[in-house]
């Protein structure tokens, strides 16, 4: 089948579906019509789209953790704990890494070993292996909307299973669940496979059942310039809308510069709405998700609380519809349920304190927002041009050409030529443009910003900056200042480390 950004016909969809359901025994017998009946019974307070709409209309930012363990009962316990002890507003089921690679045999092994050892040896919930039956048990045992969060290039069977089970949201997309998560899976394949996932949601929409879809905004979580992740999010939203998805949450991972963060997520919502309408998708209900810092965390738990809280503040001031919460264990490993609840409680405290407050508009924010939109448009225009008007084809060609280019991505289909770094205020800029097609004005803006920093730090603008920035937050700073003595550093040392 040839890749094209075009709604799958029901016939095509059903043809593919037959194959999909055979991928693992639990696929057998999943019945769309029976699911429709089941999904119609989902009470409003367990519907993802309903709760998002309520939050958006009331100006509330919801908090959602990540969480998943190997076994069903433990998973249910975990989720209910995060609801009652953490105060989570929305529940996840983070899917394990074998499932993400469709290695269901290894999942089976992980499940067995977890049972034997009495602790989870999988880093998430193996939804496919547990099947509709297991996933429904989870759905019926919790009292909040449920979403699958994963990183699965081919999530077709998983999507069939979770939606059949009453989970009313699915994270992912053909770009965002490929480039950061896979090494050798082609974009043709993942875009096609995610068209299927979207078409499934579109089918349910046609039956009057609203299901939410969320492109994964932060990508590699590591110094992705806002315009690059926004471009990807908008493309995935458009691809989803084409398949009939009507409830979309576009996401963004915290950069750390408050003005840039607020500007970025506001620009994302505006611009995505503009593109949706311009493309004729008029009935999409769009919301936003802000991810607390997605890069390397500091090991110290108190410092982690600082990072978490700053993320909550940015999310709240930006007016994001929901925020994805990190935990004080982030630098170590999958959090205990207690550590997970701690992250949510710190976050909710901040959200409550700021509930009535938004970031007041400033010149800085207006300028930043304008710049992000201009950059994003350059990228998307070029994608469309490369695809001769077809967004799906354009996306594949744009990655080939390095027009779309995600820093630190593992995929061989990603050029990896673009390099980011922070400017002197901590905002993320383009250090090396690679083949990202920016106007001269934009290039100059980015260069000047980085030159400013380089001058301040008495060094050259180069890859060493990027590396220093990768480490910075985990070492307790936003900007990776060089360790050689700057005047400021000298001056600090004079006061702090001098001994008599």
């Amino acid at each position, binding site marked *: 089948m040839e890749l094209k950004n075009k709604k799958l016909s029901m016939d095509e969809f059903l043809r593919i579906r037959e194959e999909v359901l055979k991928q693992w025994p639990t696929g057998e017998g999943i019945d769309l019509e029976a699911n429709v009946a089941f999904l119609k019974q989902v009470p409003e307070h367990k519907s993802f789209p309903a709760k998002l709409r309520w939050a958006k209309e009331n100006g509330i930012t919801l908090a959602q953790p990540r969480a998943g363990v190997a076994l069903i009962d433990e998973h249910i316990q975990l989720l209910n704990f995060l609801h009652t002890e953490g105060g989570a507003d929305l529940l996840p089921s983070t899917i394990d*890494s074998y499932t993400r690679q469709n290695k269901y045999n290894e999942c089976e092994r992980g499940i067995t070993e977890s049972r034997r050892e009495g602790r989870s040896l999988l880093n998430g919930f193996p939804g496919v292996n547990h099947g509709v039956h297991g996933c429904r048990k989870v759905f019926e045992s919790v009292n909040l909307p449920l979403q699958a969060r994963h990183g699965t290039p081919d999530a077709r069977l998983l999507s069939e299973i979770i939606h059949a089970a009453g989970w009313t949201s699915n994270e992912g997309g053909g770009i965002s669940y490929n480039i950061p998560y896979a090494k050798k899976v082609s974009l043709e394949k993942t875009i096609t496979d995610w068209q299927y996932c979207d078409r499934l949601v579109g089918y349910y929409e046609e039956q009057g059942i609203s299901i939410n879809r969320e492109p994964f905004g932060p990508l590699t979580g590591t110094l992705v310039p806002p315009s690059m992740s926004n471009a990807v999010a908008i493309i995935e939203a458009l691809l989803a809308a084409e398949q009939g998805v009507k409830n979309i949450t576009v996401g963004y991972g915290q950069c750390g510069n408050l003005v840039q963060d607020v500007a970025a997520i506001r620009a994302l919502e505006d611009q995505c709405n503009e593109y949706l309408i311009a493309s004729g998708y008029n009935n999409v209900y769009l919301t936003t998700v802000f991810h607390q810092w997605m890069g390397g965390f500091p090991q110290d738990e108190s410092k982690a609380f600082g990072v978490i809280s700053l993320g909550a503040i940015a999310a709240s001031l930006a007016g994001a519809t929901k925020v994805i919460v990190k935990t004080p264990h982030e630098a170590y*490993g999958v959090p205990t349920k207690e550590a997970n609840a701690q992250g949510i409680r710190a976050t909710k405290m901040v959200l409550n304190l700021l509930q009535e407050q938004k970031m007041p508009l400033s010149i800085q924010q207006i300028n930043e927002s304008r710049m992000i939109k201009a950059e994003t448009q350059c990228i998307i225009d070029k994608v469309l041009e490369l695809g001769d008007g077809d967004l799906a084809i354009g996306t594949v060609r744009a990655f080939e050409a390095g027009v779309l280019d995600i820093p630190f991505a593992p995929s061989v289909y990603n050029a990896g030529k673009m390099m980011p770094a922070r400017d002197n205020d901590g905002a993320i800029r383009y250090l090396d443009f690679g083949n990202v097609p920016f106007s001269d004005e934009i290039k100059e803006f980015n260069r000047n910003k980085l030159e400013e920093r380089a001058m301040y730090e008495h060094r050259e603008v180069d890859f060493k900056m990027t590396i220093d920035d990768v480490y910075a937050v985990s070492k307790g700073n936003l900007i990776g200042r060089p360790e050689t003595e700057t005047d400021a550093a000298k001056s600090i040392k004079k006061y702090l480390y001098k001994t008599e």
Partner: protein
Amino acid sequence: MTNTVVLGVIGADCHAVGNKILDYAFSKAGFNVVNIGVLSSQEEFINAAEETGAKAMIISSLYGHGEIDCRGLREKCDEAGLDDMLLYVGGNLVVGKHDWEEVKEKFLAMGFNRVYPPGADPEQGIRDLRDDLKLPKPE
């Protein structure tokens, strides 16, 4: 070559940032880095070592399945005749925040020569590898 190392992230693990930085650091330190990247199986590590005559494997596992993924690697090396292969492993080796000494013991028992805790400095690995390979200290 004595200073050839195979670098990679084992298992179904896609964490690429540390890998790119380890590549940069070991290369800059003068090693000949054969980077097989993320999502690499035990077989891919062994094949790369056989092909290049590498003396050490610098293995990362971030995503928590390290325990399952690393089991049996020493035995496979022995079978392949890679007898004195230095096996280094680091990252977030198990699921969750665990007592580090226990984790370390577990991996040493599995036949690894060096085991590094979360967020370990690549420079430490480089110093250790120079020692273990009896390479001269850099001027």
